[in-house]
């Protein structure tokens, strides 16, 4: 009977290895940073399943706190990537210039309330006085995520 259980668990291990491989392929291909962050999150979940599988195979629970750590690691990882990607305009405009033009897109509440249309990033150079003058904001349509 335990032979059947072991066989099932080893099959699951192989399935997990295959899916980890496929997710790694997506991480390699990207194309954007956000794709990689998302795939990394999936990879972390697969790792969690792997650790759980290992615990089931060895009948040994001492590695299980790792699962909690891995969960939080995946969360912090993808949130920080999303937070600092140019698409997220949650950034305060004072730390602008670092990331190309994203703060210009951020509608300051005091700047935006009066006018009905938010200023286009390239049409209104005054929108972000802190931006580096030598960084060309560029039309946002052409902008892609960091590669």
């Amino acid at each position, binding site marked *: *009977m*335990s032979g059947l*259980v072991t066989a*099932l*668990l080893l*099959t*699951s*291990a192989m*399935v*997990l290895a*295959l*899916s980890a*491989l*496929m*997710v790694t392929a*997506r991480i390699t291909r990207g194309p*954007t940073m*956000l*794709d990689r*962050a*998302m*795939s990394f*999150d*999936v990879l972390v*979940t*697969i790792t*969690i*399943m792997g650790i*759980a*599988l290992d*615990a*089931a195979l060895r*009948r040994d*629970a001492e590695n*299980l*706190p790792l*699962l*909690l750590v891995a*969960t*939080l690691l*995946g*969360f912090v990882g*993808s*949130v920080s*990537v*999303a*937070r600092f*990607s140019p*698409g*997220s*305009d949650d950034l305060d405009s004072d730390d602008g210039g670092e990331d190309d033009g994203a703060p210009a897109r951020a*509608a300051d*509440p005091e700047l*935006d309330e009066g006018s009905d*249309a*938010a200023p286009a990033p390239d049409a209104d150079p005054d929108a972000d006085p802190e931006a580096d003058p030598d960084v060309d904001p560029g039309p*946002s349509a052409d*902008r*892609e*995520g960091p590669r």
Partner: protein
Amino acid sequence: MTWPDALDVLGALLLLLGSLLSLVAAIGVLRFPDLLTRMHAATKPQVLGLMLVAAGLTLELRDARVAALLGLVVMAQMVTAPVAGHMLGRASYRAGQVDRDLLVVDDLTGVVERVDEERGAP
């Protein structure tokens, strides 16, 4: 076939099911065309897959401490996964990475600029 044996087999089956879900998710992550679509595939192992694996492992080890810890892991994942997914999806949409040809309806065009509001605690 005794009770512990049956529980062992059931637990192993649940673990296999969770792994298969993650395989399907990996296929989706690999083949779907854009980030938001891939994210739908990714949600699956993070929620149902993890629940199945936790249930399976609990059946295998049959220990109250393990059950409590795994419940905590599932709960942490269920609280954090939507936040991470929302932030990634939102950043992706705002960076213009959404493939509009794939959308039947996009209620959000032109809204993004207006939808901004004051952030922070009230």
